[in-house]
């Protein structure tokens, strides 16, 4: 039935998958497609399993089973990594974008290698007419091009000024083709960067079709140059979001979208739920930065470090919220793979929250962060402490795991600071 409904979409379907950046990439792409006046059907943010995709199609079709205006309509589906084989088989996508592959909730997905195997299986069932939109900087994603007979659209960062030497969590160390140990000319985070394998000579493609260079990050936006588009501005910040934007631009080009709508779509994108969403409470700007795994957390912390180093910066006020419900991962040991240490010298006030607040407080103590002003499991008490310790006009960076974000945002909603948000899934 899902296949039949999807078959009505005259514009076909495209899928976006990867450990991090699925939601933001889909959101940027949707913004571009709206600017291009492309009729669009997409799943709800985070509803990225088969049932989320099915329910988007079903609710568009209604009781008649016909999707109105489907002749020109394009399906854009954010797709869970493990759902990709079923989604690719059922939807026969025109293109699939892969953002990156990191360790993520091993108690749910099993090992990183199993996710790669899901993807390999998905591609075996995908028509070769489909275009793969691949992150050249992530060797695990780039590997998908091996043995793929269809077209590939590469994207990548050209940002040596953001190179890091930090250890972080490497999730791809060895070449799957020959077993060689990857070497790097420069590395942005984890195993992502200008990689090459000394064993078989495979390396990051030299000239990806879509490249960002001259990247500048501020608290609320990023600016970068893309060949053909010139300098573009996007109201999302962080190197990881520039990479997400490149995935969306590359996908837009595969779909034949012109430069004008791409530039306007980037400029007009709104932050997705909890991903650099700013909520104003009693004059404090709470900047919600969802983290779900070590790689995502390291990227957010690198962004905070970059902001702390910028010329007019003050010490950062940061709240870290750790939950251990199913959707967060019940195993909280991943917090030890996050590089909290480099931020220790740049901090003002620190608060810790969530169902496993004491575990998080201990992680931060061992990272030599200033003692937390509050360690509070209750979101209401935590928010009170944040308001007590700050003044109107202050920025507060709130870094929660997924259900901690829901809890905290729920408290903000009770106080009328944000609208209610209901999660289906």
């Amino acid at each position: 039935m899902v296949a039949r409904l999807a078959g009505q979409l005259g514009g076909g379907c495209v899928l976006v998958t990867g450990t991090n950046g699925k939601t933001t990439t889909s959101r940027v792409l949707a913004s571009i497609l709206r600017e291009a006046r492309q009729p669009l059907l997409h799943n709800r943010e985070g509803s990225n399993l088969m049932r989320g995709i099915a329910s988007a199609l079903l609710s568009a079709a209604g009781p008649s089973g016909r999707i109105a205006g489907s002749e020109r309509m394009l399906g854009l589906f954010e797709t869970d990594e493990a759902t990709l084989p079923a989604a690719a088989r059922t939807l026969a996508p025109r293109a699939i974008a892969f953002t990156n592959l990191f360790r993520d909730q091993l108690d749910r997905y099993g090992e990183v290698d199993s996710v790669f195997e899901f993807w390999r299986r998905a591609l075996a069932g995908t028509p070769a007419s489909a275009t793969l939109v691949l992150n050249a900087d992530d060797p695990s994603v780039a590997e998908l091009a091996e043995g793929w007979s269809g077209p590939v659209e590469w994207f990548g960062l050209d940002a040596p000024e953001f190179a890091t030497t930090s250890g972080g969590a490497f999730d791809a160390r060895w070449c799957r083709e020959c077993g060689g140990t990857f070497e790097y000319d420069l590395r942005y985070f984890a195993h992502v960067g200008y990689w090459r394998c000394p064993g078989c000579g495979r390396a990051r493609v030299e000239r990806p079709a879509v490249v960002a260079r001259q990247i500048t990050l501020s608290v609320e936006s990023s600016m970068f140059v893309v060949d053909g588009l010139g300098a573009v501005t996007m109201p999302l910040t962080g190197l990881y979001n520039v990479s997400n934007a490149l995935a969306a631009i590359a996908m837009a080009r595969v779909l034949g979208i012109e430069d004008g709508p791409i530039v306007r779509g980037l400029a007009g994108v709104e932050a997705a739920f909890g991903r650099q969403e700013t909520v104003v409470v009693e004059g404090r700007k709470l900047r919600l930065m969802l983290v779900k795994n070590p790689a995502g957390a390291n990227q957010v912390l690198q962004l905070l470090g970059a902001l702390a180093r910028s010329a007019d910066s003050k010490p950062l006020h940061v709240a870290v919220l750790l939950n251990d419900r199913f959707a967060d991962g019940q195993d909280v040991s991943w917090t030890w793979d996050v590089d909290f240490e480099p931020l220790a010298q740049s901090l003002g006030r620190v608060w810790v929250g969530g169902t496993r607040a004491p575990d998080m407080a201990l992680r931060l103590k061992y990272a030599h962060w200033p003692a937390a002003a509050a360690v509070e499991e209750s979101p209401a008490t935590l928010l009170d402490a944040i308001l007590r310790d700050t003044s109107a006009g202050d920025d507060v960076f709130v870094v929660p795991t997924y259900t901690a974000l829901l809890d905290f945002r729920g408290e903000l909603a009770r106080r009328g600071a944000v609208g209610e948000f209901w999660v289906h899934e």
Partner: protein
Amino acid sequence: MSDAASSPPHALSLRIAHLYPDVMNIYGDRGNAIALQYRCEARGIAVEVVDIRLGDPFDPAAFDIVIIGGGQDREQRRIAEDLQSRAEALRAAATDGMPMLAVCGGFQLFGRRYVDQDGGTIPGISIFDMETRHPGAAVQRCIGDIVLTTPLGEVAGFENHGGRTYLADTQAPFGRVVRGYGNNAEDGGEGARTNNVIGTYLHGSLLPKNPAIADELILAALRRRCGEAVTLTPIDDAAEQAAHTSAVTAARRSPAIKKDP
């Protein structure tokens, strides 16, 4: 001020060998190195953590503590061979009382052998008299919060392993399972202990929230260097105890002792 005769000398520095930290690190195993370092430095004991990678020269006699974590299957096979070349030296150090911590995949490789689901065998280094068998992909992994009773007190953490480990009758476990699966989801034992070598499935952040184990390893290392009279200065453990309690509370939310059907 504590008795000078029982405090470690100021100039003392402990050397910790972290085996294969770039490979055997799947579940936050770095936390154990961070905890050892923090708890030494808080007492004025200098620490050097040395990463030993595949193929690096390694003489256990030049170190005071050895730690190893867990990896993915593909990666673990690769280090097993390298570890074999160091087996004799590690066994000698273990017999001599060197403190070691082997977690998850590292724990499995400290046994006699690992038998994978197809019957293939990866030899271990036989510090523990035990073997690990993978029951096949159809059998559920042992995943969840876990609490143990041990001679060092209550221990809390998280386990995630497919392999089932069986100790020889003469091999002591590290502890008894109060909540969770343990070595094999059958006999209620968890981990293994021989001299000052501790093996366990409790991964990642074991030492930070179980400071008594971290201190046991540190004290054993100091005593090897400075004699049995050495004691450890108490340090503020409020945050550590709170994290411990939080982990025990999380484990109490799930059924008590879990066994294979």
